[in-house]
């Protein structure tokens, strides 16, 4: 595959999820990405049409990992175009559909675990870490001073954007190359990187980072409430936080949605506000 064609396919693969539909998932985006290669190897419209309809069926994978499958299908299509007889062509056509579906689910599982399940929340923690280092605590100290420079605010999410975009673009670009070189292998790209090791390392990193940011928040908030409201203020806040975490853990155990937790938290706040307004109790509080 020449560089020009690869760039075209790469750019079009960024639209892999355009037209996502429940009937066939990413089929429109997949065909859009395949178009340059199909047009090149099937100049005759009738054959091109057949090839396009072949790939118009259901297709669903993690968008960053789609390059592996696109590259693989590009090379299989080339093989089909140079098949010596009808039997060979039919065999290749059948294998292209099988490989496409097998790889799509394999890469969806890997990609979802790495990107959606781990890297996305890790970038959120990184954003909080950048803000903490820069001295912005407004996201957990609601009544604290909220003045902060916009570039510090932007640095948090931008760090995540840069990390995810560079990793995803690399995987997308390499995926097309690797997939094309696999030339119809059913294990194509699944052995490119030690995915299981990456997944477990990311989980551990996320776990350590989440505990660190929790402890940092806990100590900073404790210091802030103690300094501004004394030991009573700190204890009152600690009781409220413990109650909120308790509500969350109960709902988590019952496998209820986070929206139900938020709704319960609002009800809990109504109760606390009403109790706090009762004269005798307000004095104690």
């Amino acid at each position: 595959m020449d560089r020009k064609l690869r760039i075209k396919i790469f750019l079009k693969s960024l639209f892999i999820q355009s037209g996502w539909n429940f009937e066939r998932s990413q089929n429109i985006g997949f065909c859009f990405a395949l178009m340059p290669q199909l047009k090149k190897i099937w100049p005759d419209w009738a054959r091109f049409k057949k090839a396009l309809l072949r790939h118009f069926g259901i297709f669903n994978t993690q968008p960053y990992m789609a390059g592996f499958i696109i590259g693989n299908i590009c090379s299989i299509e080339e093989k089909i175009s140079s098949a010596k007889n009808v039997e060979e062509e039919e065999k290749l056509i059948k294998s292209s559909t099988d490989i496409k579906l097998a790889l799509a689910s394999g890469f969806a599982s890997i990609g979802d675990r790495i990107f959606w399940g781990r890297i996305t929340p890790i970038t959120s923690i990184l954003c909080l870490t950048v803000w903490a280092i820069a001295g912005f605590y407004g996201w957990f100290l609601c009544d604290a001073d909220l003045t902060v420079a916009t570039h510090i605010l932007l640095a948090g999410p931008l760090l995540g954007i840069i990390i995810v975009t560079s990793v995803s673009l690399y995987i997308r670009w390499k995926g097309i190359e690797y997939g094309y070189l696999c030339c119809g292998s059913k294990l194509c790209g699944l052995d490119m990187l030690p995915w299981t090791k990456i997944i477990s390392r990311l989980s551990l990193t996320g776990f350590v980072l989440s505990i660190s940011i929790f402890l940092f928040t806990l100590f900073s908030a404790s210091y802030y409430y103690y300094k501004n409201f004394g030991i009573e203020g700190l204890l009152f806040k600690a009781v409220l936080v413990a109650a909120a975490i308790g509500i969350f853990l109960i709902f988590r155990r019952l496998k209820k949605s986070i929206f139900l937790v938020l709704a319960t938290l609002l009800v809990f706040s109504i109760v606390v506000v009403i109790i706090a307004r009762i004269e005798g109790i307000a004095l104690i509080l």
Partner: protein
Amino acid sequence: MEITRIIISGFIGGIFHLDNVQFGQFFLSRPSFMGILIGCLNGCPVEGAVMGILIELIYSDFLPLGGSVSPNGSVAASCAVLLYAHSFQNVSLAFFVAVFAGALYSKVEFFLRKKRSAWNAEMEMEINENRFKINYWIMKALMMEGAAAAGFIIAVSLVFNVAGKICNYATVFPVTDLAFSLVPWIVLTALILKFRRQVMGCKLRKSQETVKNK
């Protein structure tokens, strides 16, 4: 002036929302970034950042696996900033309304995805009749999704803006303020539990593999 700002912000929100599913997935539609961006346009980047990151952490509970339609963080963050800047002038109420608005938008997204299923038959017909123009369908999908998100953001902001002239939102501020101050602790606990489960899962798999190898 206020309406113009809402409309411009809505359209920008709609355009950036496309990054979420339709094009690229460069994380430009992540709520923490959208909150600051729309916040800058409406003179409240800090509040936008605070609401954005909390929405992002709340929604990280939902994964877009296998085509499931999760609550939309970019729409929620845009709504949150516009509600804060033009209706409530209170971060906590804007946050809670926006979190539920993001969940409501997933119904709109579900409808759009369902509607696009009907395109397949039309496209197949076009391919068979040799008049297939895929660029047109891709553009149509982008326009529909962007317009729906923009329309939703503008509609939510305007509804609460108009309702603000009739009701006094300030009465609920003590309740939402208290609940909002507890949200960071819930999302941080959720994060720890999420990664703990993942680490335990990896360990379990590893031990199973060792047993298998033995």
